[in-house]
Every structure is written in C-alpha cells, then in structure tokens.
C-alpha cells in the first residue's frame, strides 16, 4: 500500500486522502496513517511551515500571515524516489 501511495502521488503531483482511499480501497484514516508512516520512515517529507518567523517578528503587523496554512506540501525524498 505504501509503495502504491508513493507512486500515485508522484504521478499526479497532488493528492487527497479521500482520493487515495478510494483508489486503494481503504479508509481515509488508513491513508493518513500510511502517509505518516512514509514520513516517519523518511520516504516523504512534510514541509515545515510553523515557527518560521523569528521571534523578532512578533511586532510585525503581518506576523500571522507568515504562518498561513493555505496548503500542505510534501516532498518525496531521495529515498522515496528510489522506491518509485
């Protein structure tokens, strides 16, 4: 299943848990765990967004914009690419 997840998300450039669950005939929760497993094992990397503003920014009127959560992005690591 994990290999399949990697292959599907690599070929489409995006994913939704719902789509993956549908394609692999499992529940969305299983996909969420699968993605987390891939991250834990170093095949996939979730891009860090939080805490990127240094503390000196706290006075900046736009400080909250820095941590905007428009979309979660991931990167398939070199290890992940070798599996694909």
């Amino acid at each position, binding site marked *: 299943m994990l290999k399949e997840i990697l292959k599907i998300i690599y070929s489409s450039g995006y994913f*939704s848990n719902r789509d993956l669950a549908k394609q692999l005939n499992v529940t969305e929760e299983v996909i969420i765990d699968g993605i987390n497993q891939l991250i834990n094992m170093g095949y996939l990397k979730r891009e860090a967004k939080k805490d990127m503003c240094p503390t000196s920014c706290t006075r*900046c009127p736009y400080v909250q914009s820095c941590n905007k959560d428009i979309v979660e*992005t991931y990167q398939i690591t070199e290890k992940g690419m070798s599996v694909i």
Partner: protein
Amino acid sequence: MGNRKIALVGNPNSGKTTLFNVLTGANQHVGNWPGVTVEKKEGKLRYQKNEYDVIDLPGIYSLGAFSEDEIVAMDYVLSDDADVIINVIDSSNIERNLYLTSQLLEMGKNLVIVLNMTDEAEKRNIKIDVFGLSKILGVPVISAVAHKGEGKNEIIKEVVNAILKKKTYDNPIKYNKNVLHHIEHIEEILKGKKIPYPIKWTSIKVVEGDSHVLKRLEESKIGKEAVEAIKDFHRFHSKDSFELEVVDSRYSFANSIAEATVSRPAKEVETITDKIDRIFINKYLGIPIFAIIMLVVFQVTFVIGEEILGGIAAFLIEGLGGLIEKLLMSVNSPEWLISFSINGIINGVGAVIEFVPLITVLYLMLGFLEDSGYMARAAFVWDNLMRKFGLQGRAFISMIIGFGCNVPGIMSARTMDNKKDRMITMFINPFMSCGAKIPIYTVFIAAFFPNHGALVLFSLYALGVIVALIMAKIFNNTLFKGESSYFIMELPPYRLPTIKNVLRNMWTNVSGFIVRAGTVIFAVVTVMWVLAVVPASAEPYSQDSLLGAIGSFLMPLFKPAGFGTWQESVALFAGIPAKEAVVGTLGMLYAGEYMEEGKALVDAIRENFTQLTSLSYMVMVLLYTPCAAVLGTIGKETKSIRWTVFIALYTFALGWAAAVTIYQVGSLLGFG
C-alpha cells in the same frame, strides 16, 4: 506470587482508557514510566476473589521507534510483564486499528481483542463479522461499548481464561521472499545470543531497521561480531527499502482482514468535491477559472469597498478634518500646526486610511477563498505553469501571501530547502501587489477608470504575476541554474468557510494596514511635510521647498515615463520607506497646492495626470523598488547586502523601463 497483569493497548480515542476505568473503577493511580515523561496508569481489577493489576499503556497507532509513547508500549508488551494484552479497537475505525493488531500478532503475545464502540459502528452502518474475525486471527474477540459498561463481564471472563491458557500465537504476517530470507539471515546471526526481545520478532525489526531495537541490541551482550554483522547488513542493503516492505506486509495483512470481516455502506462514488475539482483543477480550465474568480473578487471589492463604503470613509475623514481645523482655529493654534494637522495628517495619512473599507472587503473575499479550500487548488493549478518557468508550486503560496504583504511572502520562502527555489521566490515576490499598493491604484482608478476599476486592478495584479514569472525564468537561466524541488500538494476537501477564520484573515491584513498607517506612514508623511515647508523663506508645498528641490532633481529621470511634475517624482521617492506614503505624500502636497480651491485628491490627480500617465504611474508603482521593510527582510534572508542592492536596483530599472515603454508607445499610438 504477585497479581496477574493485564495491559491495555490501543489507538488514541479507541476508548481504551474508558475500558480501563470500567475495569478498575476507583482503584487506580497515575505515575510516570521510568526515565520518560509518558504517563503510566495502573489500577486493580477484582474478580472472583482474585486481584489483577491493569496497566493502561499510552494510545498509539503503531509500535515502533518514532515516539516515546510507542517505545514505552513496545518495550512493555515485549517485557513479558503482562500475562495478557487487551487490544482495544475502535469498531467504527477498525481498518486503521488493525495495523496495531497486526504488530501485536507479530509479537506472538497472549492477546484478547475488544471491539469497542460497537454502537458507533452500528450508527454508521458498519458491520463486523466478530466470529469471523476471531476465527481468522485465532484470537478471542469481544464486542463492547465501554462507556456504557456493555461487554464488561465477557471481557473479564475471556481475559481470565486467556491468562489461564497462557496462549501464544504464530506470526500470521506474510513477508515477501526477499525480506523473509533476510529475516532468517538475521535470526541466524542472533541465534544463541542473549537478546532483550524474542529472536524472531527482533530479526524482523532488525530488517525493518527499527532504531530503538538496533540500539538495544548494541547495548546488550550479543558480542561485537554480531553487532558488526548487523551493521554490515544495513550498510550492504542501504539502498533497499526493507522497512517499507515489512510495513507494507502488515498493511496487506490488516487490509485483507478488514476486507474479509468488515462491510461499510457504499460510499458516494462522486462527491461534490470530485465534481468541482473536475473543472477547477482541469489542465486547461484551471487558470482561466482562477482569473475569472479573481476578477469577480475585485469587482465585488470595488462595488462594496469603494463605491458604497469608500464614500462613507472619505466623508468621515473630511468631516474629521473640518472639525479639527475648526477646533485648532478656535484656540488660535499656530498656522504650522493647522497646516500639519490638515495637510499632513488628514490629507496625508487620512488619504491612506480612506482605503480601509476596500482593503477589508478584498481580504474578506480572499479569506473566503482560502478557507473554502479553493486556494489550495489554485496553488496546484499554478504549480504546472510555475514549473515551466523554473519555479515550484510552493512559490505560488509565497506569492499569495505577498498579496497581503511582501515581507511574510518573502519569509515564507524560508521553508524551501532548495537554494535556487528560495532565492528566485524571494526575488520575484516584490512584484506581487501588496495591500499597501492598493490605495495608490484605487486613487488613480477613481480618477481615470471609475467604470472599469475591477478590470484595471485585476490587470495590475496579473501583470505583477506575469513579470514575476518572466523574471523567474530569466533568473533560472542565468543567476540560479539547477533543478527545482518536486513538491506534492495535499488538496483538502472543499468546506464551507467559517466566519471566524475569514474574519481572522481579514483582521490580520486590515489591522496591519491600520497599524502601518498610524506608525510608518505617519512618520514618512511627517518627514515629507517638514521637507515641504522648509526653508521658511520658500513658499510651503512649492518647488522652492526642500522637498520641491528633491522632486525637481528626480523629475528628469521620470520625464520619459510622462510624470511631469516634481510632486509625482517625490511621491515615488516617498514610497520607498512605505508604499502607502505615495498616496499620503500626493494627498499632502496637492492639498497644500490646492488649499484655496479645496480640491479633493482625485480631482488634483485628474488635473496633473492623463489616462496614459496614470497607467504608467501605476505600473511603476507595481514594479519599482520594494519598500524598506521588504528590502530589510531580503537582506536578512539572503544575508547579503549585494543581493539586497541588486533587488532594489533591478526592480527600479524594470519599473522605470515598463513605465517609459507604456508612456512612449501610448503616446506614439495617440493615447497621450
């Protein structure tokens, strides 16, 4: 002999602790597992004159080395301290829970499965073949609703029975041949050695590369030779993905069990999200749809923010100005104070504040799009195009953030590992029309394009993006050659935006705008006002003032772009500390110049510009040198004065060239 021990293992939210409370009642105490901060809950179960110790292990999704909770649970289960393990499963989410079950079965421990929350599963019409599950796994399976106490007696009976039987299980998971071969190889290495865990299970974990198990093996007395043999195995197979194979084997097992024993109501084949996405992220329609949506956003912004609310804001500021003037005159205030208050503050800072309603509506609309999940689609749609220009889709997120303010837009490039991506993203972000540029556009639109405001605003935003893409391509082929990182986006389902999130997004931007107007813009306008009224010998707000001298010095530079007066040139100069100050300075200078006529800023602009020069002026504002805060951020992020100066100069040159081109070509075509 001490009490027999029962350990509870399960996923978070599986109702494990509820079952623990049901089994132990008030007989429990809480401590910590030795050496870690993980909570340890223990209690006593009394049944048929016997007392049992019940241990509630931390809630986990798997047993491995990825968290303290997992390590604590794994070490305890393997320690043989417990006589029986109760695996608590959330019945409504059984497929997910079965992964942990597969790991417990892999350990071969004495197990009882409790299918908890069966009432929830029933509500969702999930049917579980309890008998079939027990038969396939060979493990007792009990249905329960722990929070109602249902199934308590059956669980206790089955657990006591399991303790008496001391049953253990064979590992039911089927690994592929290659992995199996290596497991056997490791088993050979470990045979006869004193190891902290069962040998079969340890061999699997070694092949899987579990860091905790490898560490424990190194610390135990298995001998240097065995440690080296294991290290050699990992060195030799560093390119293999055995851990993925092992984990996948467990998933295959768990999924096959779920398929055989669980039935769920058929899901809707095509959801609303599917239907919308078929159009919104379509390869050909995605970007035109994005353009239409943005055009609608600008149209609504103009109608509500400018035409309806903008007039009210202008009226209020004008009224406030009149009141202050009267008040100051009534107390015989010096003329300079009246001039500063009215021309500097009211017509300068007030000219910026007037745009608060417009900014509010714009960010309300953008917040609505973000919270609905559409912006994630927009980022994906742009991703394909971005890649053609040597960028990655994540750069689009920085660009969207840059529409609020370029400072966080540039900061957001920090998350990019690839230096090339990071640098290009920072270098092009100043072309995004930030909130500070909106007052400048709007005042010119009101003067010359009142009926096509949305279209002009949209065109300016689009031009910024187009220039950014072209520059990205140029940088990609010259200064920062190399491959872009490949990113994958997770598209959340569409959802109805929450008022709280939309308002919060709006307030972040609007409060930032107001704070800047009251601090930076106030300071810049004050400095400009002082320069406009000194020396005392000069006519205030005239070309003879110090500011007039600066403007006159800059005027020849901007003449080819059609900006014929010193005020226009000096306003651009004032825009470098903060972009809003362009409007503030023009407001202040024109108010001073037309004091007797009492002309509004829009009328003054109409008198000093033409449609063509207003266009070239807006394009100049869009592209030229970013504000001081942005330059400071670029300096900090690139850690280079040279790059900062380069950005300040190249953007200026680009803005100037674009403005000159528009004016000269427009004049040639007879639009002058």
